[in-house]
């Protein structure tokens, strides 16, 4: 790509970003104006200025958000790793064995359609106080997206490619590793993106019911005290955490499923070529 095209692309993105920022600034100004002139209830919907003050208080002045942020992050991540891991394992087993799938699928569907909120008291009774109940609820609610997406990905392999693998004498294990898994990875990661944000929701719901730490508790405390600017600041922090978790999976997706993006494909191709050439010259020596 020539420097001129690079510059045009960068400038284009800059213009788009400026437009987005302008719209955002206009909305905030409108909201502030409405609050100042009594058009909105400032107790229930504080103006942007007060929410900004709430954010400053949380992150800079009393800094209590960091511990709660970390607790909820761990709960969501732990729930995702357990629920997602279990979903992956069961999906692989179901893909390899139709009988296994027949027995597992009904339970997976039943678990998915049971509202997480209804399960909360039972989960808390089983897993007790502390983080374990939040992790457990997160794991339960995020299991299904990973399970179903992985299962679909593993069972919708291209038939012609499968036939080619068979004709080349590939073993079942080779077919699984070199064909089914690469074809399933994009849709599996799509499921993981849904799952990790769902795990966050599960963790926060469990915090609302029974918790002493976490962003959910923090938001609840502020809302009970009618400190709505801090409550909204905590809510925004929850959204930020969700974005962080989502983009963690996005980064992993980018690294692992590199063949979907030309730029990454080129970079990986160049690295592999360099390694192969280095290996060749070593063997010649």
């Amino acid at each position: 790509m020539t420097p001129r095209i690079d510059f045009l692309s960068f400038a284009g993105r800059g213009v788009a970003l400026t437009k987005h920022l302008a719209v955002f600034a206009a909305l905030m100004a409108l909201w502030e104006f409405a609050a100042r002139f009594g058009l909105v209830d400032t107790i229930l919907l504080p103006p942007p200025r007060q929410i900004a003050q709430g954010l400053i208080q949380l992150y800079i002045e009393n800094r209590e958000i960091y511990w709660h942020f970390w607790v909820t992050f761990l709960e969501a991540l732990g729930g995702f790793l357990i629920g997602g891991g279990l979903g992956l394992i069961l999906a692989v087993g179901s893909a390899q064995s139709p009988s296994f799938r027949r027995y597992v699928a009904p339970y997976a569907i039943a678990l998915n359609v049971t509202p997480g909120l209804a399960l909360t008291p039972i989960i808390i009774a089983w897993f007790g106080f502390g983080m374990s109940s939040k992790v457990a609820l997160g794991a339960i609610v995020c299991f299904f997206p990973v399970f179903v997406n992985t299962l679909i990905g593993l069972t919708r392999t291209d038939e012609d490619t499968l036939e080619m693998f068979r004709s080349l004498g590939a073993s079942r294990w080779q077919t699984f590793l070199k064909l089914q898994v690469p074809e399933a990875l994009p849709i599996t990661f799509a499921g993981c993106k849904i799952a990790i944000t769902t795990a966050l929701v599960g963790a926060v719901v469990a915090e609302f019911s029974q918790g002493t730490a976490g962003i959910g508790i923090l938001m609840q405390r502020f809302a009970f005290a009618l400190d709505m600017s801090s409550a909204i600041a905590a809510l925004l922090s929850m959204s930020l955490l969700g974005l962080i978790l989502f983009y963690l999976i996005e980064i992993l997706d980018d690294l692992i499923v590199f063949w979907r993006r030309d730029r990454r494909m080129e970079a990986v191709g160049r690295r592999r070529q360099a390694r192969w050439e280095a290996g060749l010259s070593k063997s010649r020596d």
Partner: protein
Amino acid sequence: MTHLIRALLLGGVTLFAVPAAAQQTINAVMPKQRSANYFPLIVAEALGYFEEEGIAVNLLPSDTPIPFVNFLRNGQAHIAMMDSAEVLQAEAAGVPVNVIYEVMQTAPDGIAVSAESGITDVAELEGTVVGLVSDRDLVTMQIALDARDLTTDDVTVVVVGEAGPTLAAAFRDQTVSAIAGSGPDWLAIQANGIAIDLITPSEVSAKPGNTFVALDEGIADNADLLEGYLRAWSKGMYVAKIAPDVVAEIARTAVPEEWEDPTFGEQYLANAIRLNVSITDLAGDLQTQVWSDIQPAMQQFGLIKEIVDPAQFLDNRFITPANDWSREEVASEVEAWREANM
């Protein structure tokens, strides 16, 4: 023909009959729907005191984490039951709340331990795991510990949850040494077969529990409605002073689900009578000094940011009218009800 004339006459009389006085509906939001915990309501309904005032009570659904003051602000409720912390927080948020009646002049909050634990004082909780029914009970625990020169750093605090079986299991398995909550919580524990003792320091209980609150504009628009409601409530409260057995009988009929275990029902009601019957001479009277005394501890533990002059939110205009009724008349009505129903 005769029948036709009679029918026409009857229809005509009906048309011109003086219509029955229309009842006004008061929308109230309270932590529980009809319950022995707030027996003045069910007693006043059973004895017709609300009807006498021309009032029908509509209780709004209250099982919500949303602060009740929001139902006053959006006009759905005329009157709300709020505890002292909620009142002070609403005042701090700039909501024009007015405490017009003290429902419980002793706080229902406290600290309970298993009767088998041998713990007799909050000081013995140091180094143990203590439970909260909900996160909002943290301040109760902080005030209790502070009364014995301890802090939450000296204990491990966990939230147990609100379900009775969960609370009972926490004591049975001794996963917690004490629980901070309120009357209905440990009565629920006892209903699950666990005997408990209360070790609540006076610093925790010596504050108003629940209060009736209305907003400035609510008072201006509905003064008669509020006055009649509070007068009927006061009469219902008085019945417990002179005839607690009648209150028990009314509660058995009005809230049978709380009497499935008769022993639990009696204990629950006895606790409710202790909390609801006013300690002041006038029912529901506002204790200005107490409201001043409780605020430093609340400020210390972050429940409120600033001390507020109680004169800003206490409004005693309804106290005298709420107590303006004949005790003898209520006593004879109670006896008449007893004869008819017991």
